[in-house]
């Protein structure tokens, strides 16, 4: 731990779905400018952590804190501020299938930031170039692209408005190893270029090692281990050892 100011914190957060407690007084903080990767098995609540931070679901206990101030839930001014300064790459890319690629990338610029369509298209093409996609794909619909290209468009959409916080939900799931490595490299490049804070969740260890400055392991609703990627193989924590050993 460097002792730097935390950008985003989950403080004693509890989340239940029916009788199932998914997160149990979970506490984790991500320092400004750092890339935190949360690993864990399927169904452990990794996606829920991101959704809580984005206000897409409300916590049953505790709170999520941005820049030292508690997020009041979706609709609040602080929540809107976080959303305005954040970018998200969804597991399924979640591209709008009724819009072309460039309209997807420029969606926030046109509909929330009031940028003209002409200027937004220019910025969208720039964002597409940053994820190494050619201008030719700008006018096609997402359904015409491969899974890897859809992920790149999702990444371009996440970075188009130069966010301060980036969230990546299973960025390499469903991709072949070569394409996954390309996506990992693009994520690292863009996080460094923007100098932003990044929170990623994955169960892909190769991806976690590549994109994380720090890794946290989520198990049964709590963070059971936290350390640098290099410490993953040295730790005696049984949950991490079992996860690494597969």
């Amino acid at each position, binding site marked *: 731990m460097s002792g730097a100011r935390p950008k985003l914190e989950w403080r004693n957060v509890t989340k239940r779905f029916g009788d199932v407690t998914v997160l149990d007084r979970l506490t984790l903080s991500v320092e400004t400018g750092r890339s935190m990767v949360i690993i864990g098995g399927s169904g452990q609540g990794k996606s829920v952590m991101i959704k809580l931070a984005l206000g897409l679901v409300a916590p049953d206990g505790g709170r999520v804190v941005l820049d030292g101030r508690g997020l009041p839930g*979706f609709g609040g001014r602080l929540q809107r501020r976080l959303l305005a300064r954040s970018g998200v790459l*969804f597991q399924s890319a*979640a*591209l709008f*299938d009724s819009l072309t690629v460039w309209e997807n990338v420029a*969606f*926030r610029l046109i509909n929330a930031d009031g940028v003209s369509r002409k200027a937004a298209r220019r910025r969208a093409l720039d964002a597409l170039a940053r994820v190494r996609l050619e201008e030719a794909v700008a006018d096609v619909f997402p359904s015409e692209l491969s899974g890897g290209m859809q992920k790149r468009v999702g990444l371009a959409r996440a970075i188009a408005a130069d966010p301060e916080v980036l*969230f990546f939900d299973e960025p390499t799931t469903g991709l072949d190893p070569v394409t996954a490595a390309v996506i990992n490299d693009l994520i690292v490049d863009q996080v460094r270029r923007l100098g932003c804070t990044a929170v990623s969740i994955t169960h892909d260890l190769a991806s976690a090692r590549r994109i994380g400055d720090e890794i946290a392991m989520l198990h049964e609703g709590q963070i059971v281990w936290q350390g640098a990627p290099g410490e993953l193989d040295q730790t005696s924590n049984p949950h991490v050892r079992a996860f690494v050993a597969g």
Partner: protein
Amino acid sequence: MAPAAALTPVRAVGRLTLLCLQTLGAVTLFALRSLRAILLGPWFPGQILRQLAAIGFFSLPVVGLTAVFTGAALALNIYTGGGRFNAEQIMPQIVALGITRELGPVLAALMLAGRVSATIAAEIGAMRTTEQIDAMRTLSTDPFGYLVAPRIVAAVIALPILTVVADIIGIGGGWAVAVGFLDFNPTVYIRATVDFVQAGDVGTGLLKAMVFGLIVALMGCYHGYRATGGARGVGRATTNAVVSAAILIFASDYLLTTLFTRR
């Protein structure tokens, strides 16, 4: 066991009552959030125009065809009924009244319930199950403003216009049958219709159409927005949207007709 068994029907009624109240509450909250988005914005005029075309313009053929056949069949039925007490000549007036006050708005709304409620529920449901709605929120855009409000506004504007079209074509269907098969004088038929129909008859139908437009879009959006569970969930949302819209159209039609009937 006997007292527990005796309570089973009570429990079932209780459960049903709670479910009804829960659904009513959820629909009311959804409608209030939609109203807030409609009144306070941000507004998306491009989306409203797109929905006006999808809901209004592209529904013209189905509404027109339904109206022409219904008008023609209505004319034949009234001719048969009127003939039983030598009152065939009243046919133009009854056709006009039936179409403008009742069948024009109700049939247009039912066609829209089948065509538009289903489409809206499927579109929004698919967006919900593929995280597109979550993505929209993370892109600082309120889905109620971008997806729900434009559809409701477009349906409330489009259905009265479609009703006017249905009124004209429906009356035209009755006229065609009367002139073609029943030896009515074309000019006399039109004169009888124009002289009889009052602005209030058409106005009643248009007011109903606005309420039906709200129901059609609201049910499509509500069920689509709450869709869960992939393709099966989207299918269920589509069915629920059409069925609930149709039932609410009939129920509100009765209530509105009661309101507009002078005794």
